[in-house]
Protein backbone atom coordinates (compact mmCIF):
# COMPACT_ATOMS: atom_id res chain seq x y z
CA UNK A 1 0.00 0.00 0.00
CA UNK A 2 3.00 2.29 0.31
CA UNK A 3 3.78 4.05 -2.95
CA UNK A 4 7.52 4.56 -3.39
CA UNK A 5 9.36 7.81 -3.94
CA UNK A 6 9.80 9.06 -7.49
CA UNK A 7 6.81 7.25 -9.02
CA UNK A 8 4.08 9.90 -8.92
CA UNK A 9 3.78 13.22 -10.72
CA UNK A 10 4.11 16.50 -8.77
CA UNK A 11 0.44 17.45 -9.13
CA UNK A 12 -0.65 14.19 -7.47
CA UNK A 13 1.94 14.65 -4.72
CA UNK A 14 0.65 18.16 -4.00
CA UNK A 15 -2.99 17.05 -4.02
CA UNK A 16 -2.18 14.25 -1.60
CA UNK A 17 -0.23 16.63 0.61
CA UNK A 18 -3.08 19.13 0.76
CA UNK A 19 -5.65 16.43 1.61
CA UNK A 20 -3.38 14.99 4.30
CA UNK A 21 -2.70 18.43 5.77
CA UNK A 22 -6.40 19.37 5.90
CA UNK A 23 -7.37 16.02 7.39
CA UNK A 24 -4.63 16.22 10.00
CA UNK A 25 -5.71 19.75 10.98
CA UNK A 26 -9.33 18.62 11.45
CA UNK A 27 -8.21 15.53 13.32
CA UNK A 28 -5.98 17.47 15.72
CA UNK A 29 -8.82 19.90 16.44
CA UNK A 30 -11.09 17.00 17.38
CA UNK A 31 -8.49 15.38 19.59
CA UNK A 32 -9.17 15.88 23.31
CA UNK A 33 -6.80 15.53 26.20
CA UNK A 34 -8.60 12.40 27.48
CA UNK A 35 -8.27 10.60 24.18
CA UNK A 36 -4.58 11.15 23.52
CA UNK A 37 -3.41 7.93 25.11
CA UNK A 38 -5.98 5.73 23.37
CA UNK A 39 -5.18 7.35 20.05
CA UNK A 40 -1.47 6.73 20.52
CA UNK A 41 -2.13 3.07 21.28
CA UNK A 42 -4.11 2.72 18.07
CA UNK A 43 -1.32 4.54 16.23
CA UNK A 44 1.17 1.98 17.52
CA UNK A 45 -1.14 -0.81 16.40
CA UNK A 46 -1.33 0.67 12.91
CA UNK A 47 2.44 1.21 12.86
CA UNK A 48 3.13 -2.44 13.65
CA UNK A 49 0.26 -3.95 11.61
CA UNK A 50 1.96 -3.22 8.29
CA UNK A 51 4.76 -5.62 9.24
CA UNK A 52 2.37 -8.56 9.33
CA UNK A 53 2.41 -9.76 5.79
CA UNK A 54 0.27 -12.38 4.15
CA UNK A 55 1.99 -14.15 1.24
CA UNK A 56 -0.49 -14.16 -1.61
CA UNK A 57 -0.19 -14.28 -5.38
CA UNK A 58 2.99 -12.97 -6.95
CA UNK A 59 3.78 -10.53 -4.15
CA UNK A 60 2.67 -10.20 -0.60
CA UNK A 61 0.11 -8.05 1.10
CA UNK A 62 0.18 -6.64 4.57
CA UNK A 63 -2.47 -5.59 7.03
CA UNK A 64 -3.49 -1.94 7.02
CA UNK A 65 -6.24 -1.73 9.67
CA UNK A 66 -7.51 1.50 8.12
CA UNK A 67 -11.11 0.49 8.76
CA UNK A 68 -10.43 -0.10 12.44
CA UNK A 69 -8.69 3.26 12.74
CA UNK A 70 -11.57 5.02 10.98
CA UNK A 71 -14.31 3.38 13.05
CA UNK A 72 -12.62 4.12 16.34
CA UNK A 73 -11.07 7.50 15.58
CA UNK A 74 -13.02 9.22 12.81
CA UNK A 75 -11.08 12.27 11.63
CA UNK A 76 -8.44 11.69 14.30
CA UNK A 77 -7.19 8.78 12.19
CA UNK A 78 -5.52 11.35 9.90
CA UNK A 79 -2.88 12.54 12.40
CA UNK A 80 -2.57 8.96 13.73
CA UNK A 81 -1.90 7.47 10.29
CA UNK A 82 0.40 10.36 9.35
CA UNK A 83 2.57 9.76 12.41
CA UNK A 84 2.59 5.99 11.90
CA UNK A 85 3.50 6.30 8.21
CA UNK A 86 6.25 8.79 9.00
CA UNK A 87 7.79 6.39 11.51
CA UNK A 88 7.42 3.47 9.08
CA UNK A 89 9.34 5.55 6.57
CA UNK A 90 12.09 6.34 9.06
CA UNK A 91 12.44 2.86 10.54
CA UNK A 92 11.42 0.49 7.74
CA UNK A 93 12.06 2.65 4.62
CA UNK A 94 8.49 2.16 3.38
CA UNK A 95 7.21 4.92 1.13
CA UNK A 96 9.08 8.20 1.37
CA UNK A 97 8.93 11.75 2.64
CA UNK A 98 7.67 13.28 -0.60
CA UNK A 99 4.88 10.72 -1.00
CA UNK A 100 3.95 10.81 2.69
CA UNK A 101 0.95 13.05 1.95
CA UNK A 102 -0.36 10.80 -0.81
CA UNK A 103 0.10 7.66 1.27
CA UNK A 104 -1.63 9.26 4.26
CA UNK A 105 -4.52 10.41 2.09
CA UNK A 106 -4.98 7.03 0.37
CA UNK A 107 -5.19 5.24 3.71
CA UNK A 108 -6.92 7.78 5.95
CA UNK A 109 -9.54 9.24 3.61
CA UNK A 110 -11.34 5.91 2.97
CA UNK A 111 -11.20 5.24 6.72
CA UNK A 112 -12.99 8.53 7.45
CA UNK A 113 -15.56 7.93 4.70
CA UNK A 114 -16.29 4.43 6.02
CA UNK A 115 -16.61 5.66 9.58
CA UNK A 116 -19.31 8.14 8.50
CA UNK A 117 -21.11 5.51 6.41
CA UNK A 118 -21.29 2.87 9.11
CA UNK A 119 -21.44 5.00 12.28
CA UNK A 120 -25.21 4.49 12.84
CA UNK A 121 -24.89 0.69 12.73
CA UNK A 122 -21.71 0.76 14.71
CA UNK A 123 -23.41 2.43 17.67
CA UNK A 124 -25.91 -0.41 17.96
CA UNK A 125 -25.13 -3.61 19.79
CA UNK A 126 -24.87 -7.12 18.46
CA UNK A 127 -25.00 -8.24 14.86
CA UNK A 128 -25.36 -4.80 13.34
CA UNK A 129 -22.14 -3.59 14.93
CA UNK A 130 -20.31 -6.68 13.67
CA UNK A 131 -21.66 -6.13 10.19
CA UNK A 132 -20.60 -2.49 10.30
CA UNK A 133 -17.11 -3.45 11.42
CA UNK A 134 -16.73 -6.03 8.65
CA UNK A 135 -18.03 -3.64 6.02
CA UNK A 136 -15.75 -0.89 7.29
CA UNK A 137 -12.62 -3.08 7.12
CA UNK A 138 -13.61 -4.40 3.70
CA UNK A 139 -14.57 -1.10 2.13
CA UNK A 140 -11.64 0.92 3.46
CA UNK A 141 -9.18 -1.42 1.71
CA UNK A 142 -11.24 -1.32 -1.49
CA UNK A 143 -11.37 2.48 -1.49
CA UNK A 144 -7.68 2.73 -0.58
CA UNK A 145 -6.66 0.52 -3.48
CA UNK A 146 -8.92 2.47 -5.84
CA UNK A 147 -7.34 5.75 -4.69
CA UNK A 148 -3.86 4.30 -5.09
CA UNK A 149 -4.73 2.99 -8.55
CA UNK A 150 -6.10 6.42 -9.49
CA UNK A 151 -2.94 8.11 -8.26
CA UNK A 152 -0.80 5.79 -10.40
CA UNK A 153 -3.12 6.00 -13.38
CA UNK A 154 -3.26 9.80 -13.42
CA UNK A 155 0.54 9.93 -13.29
CA UNK A 156 1.02 7.63 -16.24
CA UNK A 157 -1.70 6.11 -18.42
CA UNK A 158 0.60 3.12 -18.94
CA UNK A 159 -0.03 2.15 -15.36
CA UNK A 160 -3.64 1.18 -16.21
CA UNK A 161 -3.02 -2.55 -16.17
CA UNK A 162 -0.90 -2.35 -13.05
CA UNK A 163 -3.54 -0.18 -11.42
CA UNK A 164 -6.26 -2.74 -12.08
CA UNK A 165 -3.94 -5.47 -10.86
CA UNK A 166 -3.46 -3.60 -7.57
CA UNK A 167 -7.20 -3.61 -6.93
CA UNK A 168 -7.43 -7.30 -7.85
CA UNK A 169 -4.57 -8.34 -5.56
CA UNK A 170 -6.12 -6.48 -2.66
CA UNK A 171 -9.38 -8.48 -2.82
CA UNK A 172 -8.24 -11.19 -0.37
CA UNK A 173 -6.95 -8.47 1.93
CA UNK A 174 -10.41 -6.86 1.95
CA UNK A 175 -11.89 -10.03 3.44
CA UNK A 176 -9.02 -10.49 5.90
CA UNK A 177 -9.27 -6.88 7.07
CA UNK A 178 -13.04 -7.15 7.34
CA UNK A 179 -12.82 -10.23 9.54
CA UNK A 180 -10.03 -8.81 11.71
CA UNK A 181 -11.87 -5.51 12.17
CA UNK A 182 -15.04 -7.40 13.06
CA UNK A 183 -13.34 -9.53 15.72
CA UNK A 184 -11.38 -6.61 17.15
CA UNK A 185 -14.47 -4.45 17.47
CA UNK A 186 -16.61 -7.16 19.06
CA UNK A 187 -13.76 -7.99 21.44
CA UNK A 188 -13.34 -4.34 22.40
CA UNK A 189 -17.09 -3.97 22.84
CA UNK A 190 -17.04 -6.85 25.31
CA UNK A 191 -13.99 -6.00 27.40
CA UNK A 192 -13.63 -2.26 27.03
CA UNK A 193 -16.63 -0.39 25.68
CA UNK A 194 -14.98 2.99 26.45
CA UNK A 195 -12.60 2.33 23.59
CA UNK A 196 -15.49 2.59 21.15
CA UNK A 197 -16.25 6.11 22.35
CA UNK A 198 -12.94 7.73 21.38
CA UNK A 199 -14.40 9.27 18.29
CA UNK A 200 -16.20 12.56 18.85
CA UNK A 201 -19.82 12.39 17.83
Amino acid at each position, binding site marked *: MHISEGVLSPSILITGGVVAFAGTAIGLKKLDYDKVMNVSLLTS*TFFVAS*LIHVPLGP*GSIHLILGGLMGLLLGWICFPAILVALFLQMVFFQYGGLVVLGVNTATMALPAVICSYLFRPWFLQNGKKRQAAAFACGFLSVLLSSILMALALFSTDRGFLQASLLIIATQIPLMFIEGIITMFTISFLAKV*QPEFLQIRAL
Partner: protein
Amino acid sequence: MKYSTSLKIILPILLVFLNCPTSHAHKIRIFAWEESGTIKTETQFSSGRAAKNAAITVINENNNQELLTGTTDSRGFFSFVIPKAAKENQYDLNIVVSSGDGHKNNWHLKAADYLETQENVPPLPPSSLPAPQKPANEHEFSVCTVDEEQLTRIIESTLEKKLAPIKRSLAIQQDKKPSLQDILGGIGYILGLAGITAYFKSKK
Protein backbone atom coordinates in the same frame (compact mmCIF):
# COMPACT_ATOMS: atom_id res chain seq x y z
CA MET B 1 -10.58 -2.38 35.03
CA LYS B 2 -7.48 -4.48 35.45
CA TYR B 3 -8.54 -6.50 32.42
CA SER B 4 -9.11 -3.44 30.31
CA THR B 5 -5.80 -1.76 31.07
CA SER B 6 -3.95 -4.94 30.28
CA LEU B 7 -5.78 -5.12 26.97
CA LYS B 8 -4.57 -1.65 26.02
CA ILE B 9 -1.02 -2.82 26.40
CA ILE B 10 -1.51 -6.27 24.93
CA LEU B 11 -2.91 -5.25 21.56
CA PRO B 12 0.23 -3.58 20.13
CA ILE B 13 2.60 -5.97 21.89
CA LEU B 14 0.74 -9.00 20.59
CA LEU B 15 1.15 -7.67 17.08
CA VAL B 16 4.88 -7.18 17.63
CA PHE B 17 5.42 -10.79 18.56
CA LEU B 18 3.01 -12.17 16.00
CA ASN B 19 5.12 -10.88 13.17
CA CYS B 20 8.65 -11.16 14.49
CA PRO B 21 9.85 -14.24 12.60
CA THR B 22 8.56 -13.01 9.25
CA SER B 23 8.63 -9.29 9.66
CA HIS B 24 8.67 -7.97 6.13
CA ALA B 25 6.06 -6.12 4.16
CA HIS B 26 5.54 -4.88 0.69
CA LYS B 27 8.56 -3.04 -0.61
CA ILE B 28 10.84 -3.93 -3.48
CA ARG B 29 14.55 -4.40 -2.93
CA ILE B 30 17.45 -4.61 -5.34
CA PHE B 31 21.05 -5.77 -4.91
CA ALA B 32 23.83 -5.62 -7.44
CA TRP B 33 27.35 -6.98 -7.51
CA GLU B 34 30.08 -7.58 -10.06
CA GLU B 35 31.01 -11.10 -11.10
CA SER B 36 33.78 -11.71 -13.67
CA GLY B 37 32.93 -8.93 -16.07
CA THR B 38 29.18 -8.93 -15.68
CA ILE B 39 27.03 -7.11 -13.18
CA LYS B 40 24.42 -9.27 -11.54
CA THR B 41 21.33 -7.80 -9.99
CA GLU B 42 18.83 -9.54 -7.79
CA THR B 43 15.42 -8.15 -6.90
CA GLN B 44 12.94 -9.29 -4.34
CA PHE B 45 9.98 -8.05 -2.39
CA SER B 46 10.59 -7.44 1.27
CA SER B 47 8.74 -10.68 2.00
CA GLY B 48 11.71 -12.44 0.35
CA ARG B 49 9.84 -13.38 -2.80
CA ALA B 50 11.56 -12.81 -6.13
CA ALA B 51 10.24 -9.88 -8.15
CA LYS B 52 9.51 -11.44 -11.53
CA ASN B 53 9.44 -9.38 -14.74
CA ALA B 54 10.36 -6.19 -12.93
CA ALA B 55 11.79 -3.45 -15.13
CA ILE B 56 15.47 -2.66 -14.57
CA THR B 57 17.04 0.56 -15.77
CA VAL B 58 20.77 1.20 -15.54
CA ILE B 59 21.61 4.89 -15.35
CA ASN B 60 24.98 6.59 -15.55
CA GLU B 61 25.02 8.60 -12.37
CA ASN B 62 27.47 11.20 -13.68
CA ASN B 63 25.14 12.60 -16.33
CA ASN B 64 21.84 10.76 -15.66
CA GLN B 65 21.98 9.02 -19.02
CA GLU B 66 20.22 5.72 -19.47
CA LEU B 67 22.74 3.01 -20.34
CA LEU B 68 20.53 -0.03 -20.73
CA THR B 69 17.23 -1.55 -19.67
CA GLY B 70 15.92 -5.04 -19.08
CA THR B 71 13.53 -7.19 -17.11
CA THR B 72 14.19 -9.72 -14.39
CA ASP B 73 13.74 -13.44 -14.96
CA SER B 74 11.47 -15.76 -12.99
CA ARG B 75 13.96 -15.86 -10.10
CA GLY B 76 14.24 -12.09 -9.92
CA PHE B 77 17.73 -12.00 -11.46
CA PHE B 78 19.01 -9.77 -14.23
CA SER B 79 22.62 -9.62 -15.35
CA PHE B 80 24.40 -7.58 -17.97
CA VAL B 81 27.91 -7.27 -19.33
CA ILE B 82 29.53 -4.07 -18.11
CA PRO B 83 29.14 -1.57 -20.98
CA LYS B 84 32.43 -0.57 -22.64
CA ALA B 85 31.76 3.12 -22.13
CA ALA B 86 31.13 2.56 -18.44
CA LYS B 87 34.37 0.62 -18.11
CA GLU B 88 36.47 3.21 -19.92
CA ASN B 89 35.00 6.31 -18.32
CA GLN B 90 34.50 4.79 -14.87
CA TYR B 91 30.81 5.60 -14.57
CA ASP B 92 29.08 5.25 -11.24
CA LEU B 93 25.96 3.23 -11.93
CA ASN B 94 22.50 3.75 -10.52
CA ILE B 95 20.44 0.61 -11.03
CA VAL B 96 16.71 1.25 -10.69
CA VAL B 97 14.05 -1.41 -10.33
CA SER B 98 10.34 -0.73 -10.77
CA SER B 99 7.64 -3.35 -10.33
CA GLY B 100 5.08 -1.18 -12.11
CA ASP B 101 2.61 -1.03 -9.23
CA GLY B 102 4.06 1.94 -7.42
CA HIS B 103 7.08 0.17 -5.97
CA LYS B 104 10.50 1.40 -6.95
CA ASN B 105 13.98 1.19 -5.52
CA ASN B 106 17.55 1.65 -6.60
CA TRP B 107 21.07 0.48 -5.93
CA HIS B 108 24.21 2.60 -6.32
CA LEU B 109 27.21 0.78 -7.72
CA LYS B 110 30.36 2.87 -7.57
CA ALA B 111 32.87 2.52 -10.39
CA ALA B 112 35.53 1.51 -7.90
CA ASP B 113 33.36 -1.37 -6.70
CA TYR B 114 32.86 -3.07 -10.03
CA LEU B 115 36.10 -2.08 -11.76
CA GLU B 116 38.44 -3.12 -8.98
CA THR B 117 38.57 -6.77 -9.90
CA GLN B 118 38.49 -5.94 -13.60
CA GLU B 119 41.77 -4.07 -13.40
CA ASN B 120 43.44 -6.98 -11.72
CA VAL B 121 42.42 -9.52 -14.32
CA PRO B 122 45.26 -8.94 -16.80
CA PRO B 123 48.19 -11.01 -15.62
CA LEU B 124 50.94 -9.27 -13.71
CA PRO B 125 53.46 -7.45 -15.91
CA PRO B 126 56.60 -9.49 -16.45
CA SER B 127 58.74 -6.92 -14.64
CA SER B 128 57.01 -7.63 -11.37
CA LEU B 129 57.59 -11.31 -11.64
CA PRO B 130 60.75 -12.62 -10.06
CA ALA B 131 63.46 -12.43 -12.68
CA PRO B 132 63.57 -15.86 -14.18
CA GLN B 133 66.89 -17.49 -13.93
CA LYS B 134 67.90 -18.79 -17.24
CA PRO B 135 67.75 -22.52 -16.91
CA ALA B 136 70.05 -24.79 -18.75
CA ASN B 137 67.20 -26.30 -20.65
CA GLU B 138 65.40 -23.77 -22.90
CA HIS B 139 62.34 -25.96 -23.27
CA GLU B 140 61.82 -26.28 -19.54
CA PHE B 141 61.85 -22.49 -19.12
CA SER B 142 58.99 -21.82 -21.55
CA VAL B 143 56.81 -24.39 -19.82
CA CYS B 144 57.54 -22.73 -16.53
CA THR B 145 56.40 -19.21 -17.56
CA VAL B 146 53.23 -20.49 -19.19
CA ASP B 147 52.47 -22.29 -15.98
CA GLU B 148 52.83 -19.12 -13.97
CA GLU B 149 50.50 -17.17 -16.22
CA GLN B 150 47.99 -19.95 -16.19
CA LEU B 151 48.25 -20.22 -12.46
CA THR B 152 47.43 -16.52 -12.02
CA ARG B 153 44.45 -16.94 -14.28
CA ILE B 154 43.29 -20.07 -12.51
CA ILE B 155 43.58 -18.37 -9.13
CA GLU B 156 41.73 -15.32 -10.41
CA SER B 157 38.85 -17.32 -11.82
CA THR B 158 38.60 -19.60 -8.79
CA LEU B 159 38.64 -16.64 -6.44
CA GLU B 160 36.00 -14.97 -8.57
CA LYS B 161 33.80 -18.03 -8.26
CA LYS B 162 34.35 -18.43 -4.54
CA LEU B 163 33.84 -14.74 -3.82
CA ALA B 164 30.60 -14.40 -5.80
CA PRO B 165 28.29 -15.69 -3.06
CA ILE B 166 30.12 -13.55 -0.51
CA LYS B 167 29.69 -10.48 -2.70
CA ARG B 168 26.01 -11.31 -3.01
CA SER B 169 25.42 -11.73 0.69
CA LEU B 170 27.39 -8.55 1.43
CA ALA B 171 25.16 -6.69 -1.01
CA ILE B 172 22.04 -8.14 0.57
CA GLN B 173 23.19 -7.26 4.07
CA GLN B 174 23.53 -3.61 3.16
CA ASP B 175 19.76 -3.47 2.95
CA LYS B 176 18.44 -3.79 6.47
CA LYS B 177 15.22 -5.49 7.39
CA PRO B 178 13.10 -4.04 10.18
CA SER B 179 14.35 -5.34 13.49
CA LEU B 180 12.65 -5.61 16.85
CA GLN B 181 14.63 -2.53 17.91
CA ASP B 182 13.11 -0.52 15.06
CA ILE B 183 9.62 -1.62 16.00
CA LEU B 184 10.02 -0.88 19.70
CA GLY B 185 11.74 2.41 18.86
CA GLY B 186 8.82 3.43 16.68
CA ILE B 187 6.30 2.61 19.41
CA GLY B 188 8.41 4.61 21.83
CA TYR B 189 8.29 7.63 19.51
CA ILE B 190 4.51 7.33 19.22
CA LEU B 191 4.11 7.28 23.00
CA GLY B 192 6.49 10.23 23.31
CA LEU B 193 4.50 12.22 20.75
CA ALA B 194 1.34 11.34 22.66
CA GLY B 195 2.94 12.78 25.78
CA ILE B 196 3.79 16.03 24.00
CA THR B 197 0.27 16.27 22.54
CA ALA B 198 -1.26 15.60 25.96
CA TYR B 199 0.90 18.34 27.45
CA PHE B 200 -0.27 20.94 24.94
CA LYS B 201 -3.90 19.83 25.19
CA SER B 202 -3.79 20.03 28.98
CA LYS B 203 -2.68 23.68 28.87
CA LYS B 204 -5.90 24.72 27.14
